[in-house]
């Protein structure tokens, strides 16, 4: 290896090492707390003297005041995220098909309305949404969170699906129509199979958005038994002597599934989502 090449490698490492530390450290810190006993968690050491899995046991057995409803809350997070994924996919696929393949009149107006919703910062929409949910009598019902999250996830879903759908060749539609296919047959037999990769990406996107959401969940839900895991984690901050090691163990259990899902579907996610996010 020539000197020049070694110099290039060294320069790359000089960037790579800080990037690795910067990205991983806060997450490693969660892990560190999760495997530390109460005393050693606060010692400031980079590895606990006696690593333990007892914190996870305490979480699974719901052995602390903050964790009495852990399994219930895990379930809430799960079914809410799954429902949001399903409903978003349903609504957005129909809308994207109508706008892109059926060229419905007014489609462009609907697309712009959706984009507008997508760009309005979610925290600003939260205030009027909160009030509307109380008018509808949905406050404290899990459905308020489901509907709010579907509202937030749909615009981007429609946008990405419309982009993907626009790329399908028109000849397919024409051939199907000449064969006498109705729009619904076109939808089922031509459109859905071809759109499958985008549908996987969008379903995952909506599911993760709902699972990760904190602000809407904590505004719209408040009963111990119907909040999601995200809100339950937030409750730990309400006391000064909270068991941080249990919080971090719970946080790890809450944070790992989305990271795992992300890596499983990465192939679909990065292509579909980065292409849709910003066009050059």
């Amino acid at each position: 290896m020539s000197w020049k090449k070694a110099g290039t490698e060294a320069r790359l490492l000089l960037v790579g090492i800080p990037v690795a530390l910067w990205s991983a450290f806060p997450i490693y810190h969660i892990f560190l707390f999760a495997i530390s006993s109460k005393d050693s968690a606060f010692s400031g050491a980079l590895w606990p003297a006696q690593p333990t899995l007892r914190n996870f046991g305490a979480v699974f057995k719901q052995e602390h005041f903050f964790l009495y409803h852990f399994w219930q809350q895990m379930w809430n997070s799960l079914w809410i995220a799954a429902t949001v994924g399903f409903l978003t996919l349903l609504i957005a696929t129909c809308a994207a098909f109508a706008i892109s393949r059926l060229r419905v009149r007014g489609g462009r107006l609907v697309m712009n309305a959706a984009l507008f919703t997508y760009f309005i910062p979610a925290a600003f929409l939260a205030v009027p949404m909160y009030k509307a949910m109380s008018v509808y009598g949905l406050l404290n019902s899990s459905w308020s969170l489901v509907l709010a999250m579907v509202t937030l996830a749909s615009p981007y879903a429609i946008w990405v699906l419309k982009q993907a759908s626009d790329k399908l060749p028109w000849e397919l539609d024409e051939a199907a129509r000449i064969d006498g296919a109705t729009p619904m047959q076109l939808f089922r037999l031509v459109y859905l199979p071809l759109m499958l990769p985008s549908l996987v990406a969008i379903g995952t996107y909506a599911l993760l958005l709902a699972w990760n959401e904190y602000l809407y969940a904590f505004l719209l839900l408040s009963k111990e038994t119907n909040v999601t895991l995200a809100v339950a984690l937030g409750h730990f901050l309400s006391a000064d002597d909270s068991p941080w090691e249990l919080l971090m163990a719970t946080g790890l259990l809450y944070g790992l599934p989305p990271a795992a899902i992300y890596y499983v579907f990465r192939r679909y996610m990065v292509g579909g989502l980065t292409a849709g996010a910003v066009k050059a």
Partner: protein
Amino acid sequence: MTSMQRWGLALLVPYVLLFLVFVLYPVLYGFWLARSPAAYAKLFEDPVFFRTVVNTLVFVVVAVNVKFVIALYLSGFFVNTRPWIRWLSVLFILPWAVPSIPTIFSVRFMLNPEWGMVNSIIFRLTGADGPNWLTDPTLALSMSMLVHVWKSLPFWTLILIAGRLAIPKEQYEAASVDGATGWQQFRYVTWPSMRTLYLTSTILSMIWTLGDFNSVYLLTGGGPADLTHVLATLGIRYIRLDQLEQAMATIVVSMPLVLPLVWFMVRRLSRDGTQ
């Protein structure tokens, strides 16, 4: 009306209903709630308000631009093809893939002045006590910005990597035949191709950063003494205090900041979409 149009309208109904019930009606009702001038007078008298507006502007301008300069630089780093860089990119995505709450709480504990990891490392290295990261308002807001950059840097780096990979290799080859230095290649090949993407992304990121509730709320809670609020957390604070009019007024006041940016983005994407 053709059967295509009928089916098209029928398939649009679910989304249109969702939009009317959960976006349009709430927004119109919200604006109607915020119609009284008294709400604004009260808002402007709140000593926290002015500070919040300044914080928001600083947050958006500084955090977003710092983030994009780093993202632009790192996008150049990640297009190098090495096996270890591919592994590093997997690690690099983590902050974006993991939900905010556990990670931001983790940073919050790290920054605890007495037993946090950061100050204990500072003490071990220098023998001096580290600063009170979250009880000094300027420092606390800076830490919120840092958390924001940490969380959203991977996403924007990915976008800029996609932009870099779209530049034809021949342009770089031609440039290096002409003896262009690394900086000249960036200046005359990379930047002209990426400028539009960079600016559009920056604007989009500014809009979303205006709505970044988590980075501030979960790290500082708006404190100390409500000095680190941004508009997003201030609106929610009024809701928690049961002052809905104030909350709406906060949103209305921030519209001159948000709407031009949103309008720009909708125009841009909607034009691209019809091409």
